[in-house]
């Protein structure tokens, strides 16, 4: 842990001891005329898991998709404010979105392996970014990524079979391996377990906890228990506003905002 905390803004200063990896300042998002996010200020601490919670339509996924500019693919979406990655504004014209996404990977709600072999799924990213010069390097990256995603033991005998033939939980871990393979610094997860059964969910949660050593992780989740289990910090969104952000323990035991209190005790959402 870093003993000399960087100034993190009034809220975070009192509770966090790590460096800031990404920082959103006054982030507004519009879909056409409709505003989806209102002046969100949020710090993403390095090598921690931060959970974004809140009722459906509260803007947490929208915020997540701003972090690697996935919202660019939506024509009517407009983002103002500043989001930095290592103090570099990701919406700056000098930033190449392709490079950004190589540094900020993403795992989606529904497992979306490519209709290719397991190996090709993992090798896809390293190939397009030229991370491996030889076939054996590529294989090494693939194997390491699968190992880190806790999938290698299960699939080592069928690396060249279609990734779509795996079970849902295995597919999601394959997608995580695919994201890891390009060595991102930040991994964004958009409700990664909502399509999985409890056993697969437990495995993915363990994996998230392991990955924290090397990656900064932002996870959107609808499950309070999941947020409590895997995250160190939690941010609560409501109707496009960031309601509060604090250490997960504090949020779940002693939230300062009554809306958070209501949401985590299941009174609405």
């Amino acid at each position, binding site marked *: 842990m870093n003993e000399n905390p960087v100034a993190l803004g009034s809220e975070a200063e009192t509770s966090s001891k790590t460096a800031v990896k990404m920082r959103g300042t006054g982030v507004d998002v519009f879909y056409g005329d409709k505003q989806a996010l209102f002046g969100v200020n949020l710090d993403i601490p390095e090598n921690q898991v931060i959970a974004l919670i809140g009722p459906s339509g509260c803007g947490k996924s929208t915020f997540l998709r701003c972090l690697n500019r996935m919202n660019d693919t939506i024509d009517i979406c407009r983002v103002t404010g500043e989001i930095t990655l290592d103090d570099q504004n990701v919406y700056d014209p000098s930033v190449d979105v392709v490079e950004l996404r190589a540094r900020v990977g993403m795992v989606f709600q529904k497992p*979306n392996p*490519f209709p290719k072999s397991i190996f090709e799924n993992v090798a896809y990213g390293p190939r397009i970014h030229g991370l491996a010069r030889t076939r054996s390097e590529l294989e090494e990256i693939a194997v390491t990524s699968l190992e880190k995603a806790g999938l290698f033991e299960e699939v080592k005998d069928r690396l060249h079979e279609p990734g779509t033939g795996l079970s849902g939980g295995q597919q999601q871990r394959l997608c995580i391996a695919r994201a890891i393979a390009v060595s991102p610094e930040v991994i964004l997860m958009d409700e990664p377990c909502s399509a999985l059964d409890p056993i697969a969910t437990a495995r993915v949660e363990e994996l998230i906890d392991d990955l924290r050593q090397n990656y900064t992780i932002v996870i959107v989740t609808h499950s309070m228990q999941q947020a409590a289990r895997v995250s160190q910090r939690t941010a609560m969104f409501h109707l496009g506003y960031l309601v509060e952000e604090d250490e997960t323990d504090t949020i779940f035991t002693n939230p300062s905002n009554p809306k958070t209190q209501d949401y985590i005790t299941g009174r609405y959402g």
Partner: protein
Amino acid sequence: MIATLLLVLVACAIGAFVIGRNRAIAIAGGKVASLHSRPSHHGASLAIVCVVPALALIVLWSIIAPNVMDTAVLSRFSAELADYGVPQIEGFLRDSRAVAFGGIAGFTDELTEQAAAYYQSLNATGNMILAAGTALFVLAGLYLGYRAIKLRTRARHLVERFILVILIACSAVAILTTIGIVLSLVVETFRFFQKVPATDFLFGLHWSPQSAFEGAGREALAQDQSKIFGAIPIFAGTLLITAIAILVAGPIGLMSAIYLSDYAGPRFRAVAKPILEILAGVPTVVYGFFAALTVAPFLRNLGESVGTSVSSESALAAGLVMGIMIIPFVSSLSDDVINAVPQSLRDGSAALGATKSETIRKVVLPAALPGIVSALLLAISRAIGETMIVVMAAGLAANLTINPLEAVTTVTVQIVTLLVGDQEFDSAKTLAAFALGLALFCITLTLNVIALRVVQKYRERYD
């Protein structure tokens, strides 16, 4: 008479429907829900019971009655007709019918007048019997059907079964027609192969069926009949023109599909796609004279200006225009399959830092490949079967060449030329058209089957 009866039957059906429905409502006594079937089902079922047997009777009658009448007339006048030959008897019957029922009689005498009178009396009796039978069927159906209307009568089952039978009959028409066409092709082809050996047809290199003669003078012709039906040159011509067409339509169609599905804005797409599909609606004869009058002379002039000779009816002109014609098939079908690739795959690729073109080349196109292949195969079978463009632009000379600047001919063109004009329908020349048709049918069928199998095999890979 029959038209009147049919009109009456329609009226009966409507009446029976109303009666049956009202009866059902009356039986239910205000509680319609206590009926097993809805009142309209009872009405429809009563209408079916009334009308369908009577309709069957009318259809049967109109098939059988003319033959029965002919037989009756013949037996009555057998003495007078004893020394008539078959054509005379047929003429006699035709004239008598014309006199009796209106029409143009060729030759009338006393005998035909008598026969006509007999025809008329037979017809009048027959019509009365038919009308009586129809009425009996309708009334019996009405009586039995009306009595059968009860609370628990399963009228809905009868109505739905009836609709099912009609649906099956309609699809049977399409299937039976196909089977009939294939059978007639096979039979006529078999007859052709009795005149010309199949091996000569399939592997012969010389095609000039216009020099085939039947009957008198045939022996005088030194040429061996079977050696002029070698189909290789015309299949080679078909292949050449199809290949040119696909070389044009494949890349253009595919790339426009990629643009439309992944790059074009929704507004441009909404305009461009229908316009592309209009291209498919242009009549092929328009493409044909476009090819013959614009493209072919242009190519010939172009050839002259660079010092090569281009035939005025070249494979290139026909192939180019045919390629334009099938662009919409390729682009529209490919656009559909590319759009069917889930957005989640594109997002997944983009989230890994892939550019749009990398995503399309490495994720979208491989996932859409089966559909694209089948689109291409369908376009190929369309090109192979296309007739009008090649008739007008490709020429008739059966050259065995792969030079696209020369005139070639195709299977479809040859079928047209074999069957146009006055000729016997059992000569080797006309039968050759059936053999060509069968061969063409087999080729396009194979391509379609392959296309279907490819799609089925790989369809669900990304689900």
